[in-house]
């Protein structure tokens, strides 16, 4: 009985997921074209400036040199900028995920009046175009005396990201089984203990996804840095990169090296946390 009904299904399944030889014939050149910009910039960054002048930007590299990287890191100021970015990113990611997890815990496990409205309002804050905040934020940091400090950049990043992180964590925490919480309550655990010993450990997968995503976002930010910072010594890598471009106009190996240096940290995060990164992209956008 089963053979005649199964056979056509199997054939059609093959027809749908068919593996035609054209697939790779199409995909290999397309993918090569897609990665070509990255390979090209990497190649430029590894060439000595004299070679670029002599043989043109698009020539195949014959000699490799760290000259571009050295110049970018030292006189180009990328080294210090990398340190600034690291400080801002680590502190802002930890602080915003911590605060967001507190808010998400309160909103998801307690009967707070109007909690849906509060949650949506917080999410809406993250969706606002930052342009509508820039001028007043610059003025507020000036008034508080923190303008042009890494602290200002950190607190602004935290404020702007909180809504989205809270929303995502809320969805996750709400789905945690009630029994766990009841058992903990019966054992006499208060809200703080439950948060620290139950909610945080259980929320690890979504915290990991958000960490991967938030790290990329904050590390990659340019507009907030340009809004609250003025001194070059305080610039994170993206802002410093634009400065580098202005200062080393035709030294393409230095500009390319700076761009490669700025690309490496997020690429590393991506390769290590690929799964979390992709699931981070999906949270909030899709279910």
């Amino acid at each position, binding site marked *: 009985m089963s053979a005649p009904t199964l056979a056509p299904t199997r054939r059609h399944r093959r027809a749908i997921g068919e593996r035609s030889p054209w697939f790779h014939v199409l995909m290999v050149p397309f993918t090569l074209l897609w990665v*070509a910009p990255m390979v090209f910039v990497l190649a430029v960054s590894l060439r000595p400036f004299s070679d670029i002048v002599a043989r043109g930007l698009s020539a195949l590299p014959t000699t490799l040199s760290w000259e571009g990287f050295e110049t970018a890191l030292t006189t180009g100021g990328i080294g210090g900028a990398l340190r600034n970015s690291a400080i801002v990113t680590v502190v802002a990611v930890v602080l915003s995920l911590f605060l967001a997890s507190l808010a998400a815990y309160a909103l998801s496990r307690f009967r707070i009046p109007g909690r849906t409205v509060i949650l949506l309002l917080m999410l*809406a*804050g993250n969706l606002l175009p930052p342009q509508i905040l820039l*001028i007043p934020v610059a003025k507020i940091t000036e008034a508080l005396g923190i303008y042009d400090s890494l602290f200002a950049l950190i607190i602004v990043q935290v404020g702007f990201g909180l*809504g989205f992180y809270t929303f995502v964590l809320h969805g996750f925490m709400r789905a945690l089984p009630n029994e766990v919480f009841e058992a903990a309550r019966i054992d006499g655990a208060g809200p703080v203990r439950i948060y620290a010993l139950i909610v945080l450990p259980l929320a690890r997968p979504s915290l990991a996804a958000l960490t991967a995503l938030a790290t990329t976002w904050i590390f*990659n930010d340019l507009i907030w840095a340009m*809004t609250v910072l003025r001194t070059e010594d305080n610039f994170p890598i993206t802002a410093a990169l634009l400065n580098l*471009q202005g200062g080393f106009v035709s030294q393409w190996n230095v500009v390319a090296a700076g761009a490669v240096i700025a690309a490496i940290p997020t690429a590393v995060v991506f390769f290590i946390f690929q799964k979390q990164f992709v699931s981070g992209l999906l949270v909030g956008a899709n279910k």
Partner: protein
Amino acid sequence: MPLIVWVFLLVPLVVEAFWVFWPAMNSFSLSFTRWNGIGAAEPVGLGNYQDLMSDPTFQTALRNNVIWVIGFGGLSVVIGLALAVLLNRPGRGIGLYRAAIYLPMVFSLAVTGLFWRVLYSPDGLVNFSLDSLGLGALERQWLADPDVALYAVLVAAVWRQVGYIMVLYLAGLKGVDPSLEEAAAMDGANRWQRFTRIVMPQLRSVNGVIFAVTVIDSLRTFDIVWAMTRGGPYNSTHLLSTYMFEQGFTLVNLGYGSAIAVVIFALAIVFIISYLVRSIRQED
């Protein structure tokens, strides 16, 4: 409810209110003033908005933003969806193709901009490739030519965005019921018919998310334009956001810059609300 839970909620809420909602409201009131940041702001009523109407750069920026939404959204959605359909299968090399395509989206928009500046430079890869292909006549100064600069920047932005759209569609395709497609195949529907009649209708919610996200992102787009052209040559690549930044921070016309920001907000709000409605439906 224990007091500590109120603290848990209120501390983050106050931080966001202070750094997001309060400044947002301030932008509205600033937009009705003329202010260079020193001394007091001078109230001008709707003056800034009237000036915007007759400001040619604003009109360019507005038109560019429309081109940007259509080009950025259209191209990345078409390419991203095509790639998702192609790569939605198990098999050797699939993971590698996917990773290669969404790798650019981990780079900042500033880095993407610089990458493409190198590519577009007079003897960069783009002109070199055209020359090698015997298309030397098409070579040009991509970022210095007001007729093509905006599109040159657009290509760079799409290159980065495609991976994200592909990820969203790949997730959506996972939720597509394969038995429906098989049944249609049995009834003799060809690939294209199955895609348009069976698969696409099931991707409706993903399409909705992508539409809202694309418009909101398009209105926010700033970094890549700033990194590549700063709105030039001759203001030809300004988007609303870059023009706002130039007015607000380079020229310190704080009232005028705020008015442009309010326009950006007004254009985004419908899509923000549609995104929120979608989110609340998922929550329930």
